[in-house]
């Protein structure tokens, strides 16, 4: 029980960083973002519709990402999210914060990077 609460909190705390990182290079739609998180975390992290989209909308409200409907030939109309200038600053700050946090935890616990 305690472990699942910790997992949930860690996931919650890192979710913004994950999403901002994934839309840094190019715009992505929500399903793509969810798939990439699951794929790159090798199944350790998974976002469903109910948790992913409220987070996307919150980031958009904050002005860190911007969603835009895009229609492409032969494809369905999709909403792509891209990182804004404000989002880039936040991403850089969050990366630094997480790096420092992980290093601090590593120093204390002796956990080494893989």
């Amino acid at each position, binding site marked *: 029980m305690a472990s699942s609460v910790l997992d949930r909190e860690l996931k919650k705390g890192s979710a*913004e960083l994950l999403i901002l990182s994934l839309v840094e290079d190019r715009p992505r739609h929500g399903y793509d973002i969810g798939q990439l998180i699951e794929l790159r975390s090798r199944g350790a992290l998974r976002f469903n*519709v109910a948790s992913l989209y*409220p987070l996307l909308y919150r980031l958009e409200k904050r*002005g860190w990402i*911007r969603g835009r409907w895009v229609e492409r030939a032969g494809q369905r109309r*999709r*909403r792509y999210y891209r990182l804004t200038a*404000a989002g880039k600053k936040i991403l850089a700050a969050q990366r630094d914060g997480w790096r420092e946090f992980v290093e601090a935890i590593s120093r204390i616990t002796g956990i080494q990077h893989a």
Partner: protein
Amino acid sequence: MPDFKKEIRKRLEGLSLSPVREHEIIEELSQHLEDQYDQNLRGATTEEEAYCAVLLSLDESKLLGPELKRVERRAEQETVALGAEGKTNMFEDLGQDLRYGLRMLVRSPSFTIIAALALALGIGANSAIFSVVNTVLLRPLPYKNPDALMMVWEEATHLGFPFNTPSPANFIDWREQNTVFEGMAAMAQQSFNLTGAGEPERLDGRRVSANLFNILGVEPVLGRTFRPEEDQPGSSVTILSHGVWQRNFGGDPSIIGRTINLDGKSYSVIGVMPRTVDLPSMDNWQDQIWVPIAFFSKMPPAAGIITWRSSPGQSPASRDSRRRPRWIPSRGASRSSIRRRTRALGSPSNQCASGSSEISDPRCSFC
């Protein structure tokens, strides 16, 4: 493909989203669920199993409704997140606000029209007020040391004219007894008929003391100003405005010394003034030509407004207290204010009528 929109719509009930926003969310989420459904099918499950799995993920954490409610309603009350500076990019917000504002304006055309009218009236009124303030208070007179220039009138309040224009005799008296001012000059508006230079034309002009332009510190662009010996009856010299020189004589640089005909009399052109010269006037009078004022005994009364330039370190208040012409410093009293003041007083030519050329006339003497 199952219709996931209905399922999503059910879960959004009670959020009081705008129809547009609700439609957007439903469309986006249903696409996600359809992708997920397709993927489930590719995993060799039955349609029913794939459908149930999708619905399960939709309700997995029971978070969709509450989370969306929080995001859509209370985004502005969120605490500052890690790395945030408490505000987003100003220009991005501005763009968003502008688009939102435009949508609202399009939705309410009557409000838009009223707002646009109110803005137009407000901007127009402000522009008009600023034009007046700029002309009256801010823009200095285009003369050398304008703070030292003063307009002087006779005080004839007992006759109903607190700002009366003096007679030539009074002006001469003031000038002879002056101990305060560097110089005094008189001027009187007069129209002239210009003939012999193309089409006959009626010109706004002015008779001025020979030293007027020297007092104002205005240099001609061509030729010279009047000499004292030319300020005598019978004088036949004239100075043209820049506009007349350009319009009637094509800006001819050899205009100096040329004879022109004013009111059937020949005048020799001795100078051309720069276009900035704009003397105070009672109305929309635009000086186009000047001749010496050349006081003479039968001259009509009310020679006009007198311009003084005070001597350094002295003020009109130090003058003989028994004889006090009413004076107004030119500071802040630019052309328009002077025009307004003189217009409010009525035509000076109607004041100090008969006999006012005599200095003994009580109506035109100093108060």
